[in-house]
């Protein structure tokens, strides 16, 4: 199996090419990129780190879980390392016979990956500060 984490630039088209087929009429592709601001602060870039063996295991579980809920083919990749604004952070590709399943599975996968895969994000701001991003808190961002 292709690994979930990637230390190199992710090509969304290459991920999308891993799904589909003559009996699948719908492909839904999600591409998450680094935004130039977060909570009102200007962002220069960020660094993703992961607990790698657990991230691979959890991602594989999530994919298996999605494929048991929807008759779909799934491919997922997540970047680790230093990213600049506009760089691809995550790609989720889903194909299914019909679009309903493809949309539902793709959105579910993105949510599940964000919630359950041990990956962390340290943002670099335009003012030179840095902070770990804590989606569970409004105040836990500690300037470096």
């Amino acid at each position, binding site marked *: 199996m292709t690994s979930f984490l990637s230390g190199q630039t992710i090509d969304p088209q290459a991920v999308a090419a891993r799904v589909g087929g003559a009996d699948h009429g719908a492909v839904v592709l999600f591409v*998450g990129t680094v935004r130039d601001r977060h909570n009102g602060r200007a962002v220069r870039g960020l660094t*993703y*780190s*992961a*607990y790698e*063996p*657990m*991230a691979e*295991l*959890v991602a594989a579980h999530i994919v298996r879980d999605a494929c048991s809920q929807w008759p779909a083919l799934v491919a997922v990749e*997540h970047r680790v390392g230093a990213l600049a604004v506009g760089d691809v*952070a*995550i790609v989720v590709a889903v194909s299914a016979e019909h679009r309903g399943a493809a949309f539902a599975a793709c959105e579910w996968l*993105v949510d599940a*990956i*964000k*919630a*359950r*895969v*041990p*990956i*962390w*994000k*340290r943002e670099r701001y335009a003012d030179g500060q840095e902070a*770990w*991003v*804590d*989606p*569970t*808190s409004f105040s*836990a961002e*500690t300037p470096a």
Partner: protein
Amino acid sequence: MNRFSVRLFARYAELFATDQLDVELPAPTTVGAMISALRARPGGSALPTTLLVAVNLRQATEQTVITPADEIALLPPMAGG
């Protein structure tokens, strides 16, 4: 007493200024006892009240029993995607 190793990531690695911490505890013990020991260490008071712990790559509870052979990891809130 036995030596347990705990892997630390992201903000927790910063709190303890290391990515791996050794803790002496009688074996077998539980994740809950391990957490209490970590809170008593320098930097440990800044840990949040709710902690996510993985044992052998799987999410554990405070009741999960651990031995020195287990891979234990303290996971900050996930922020992928």
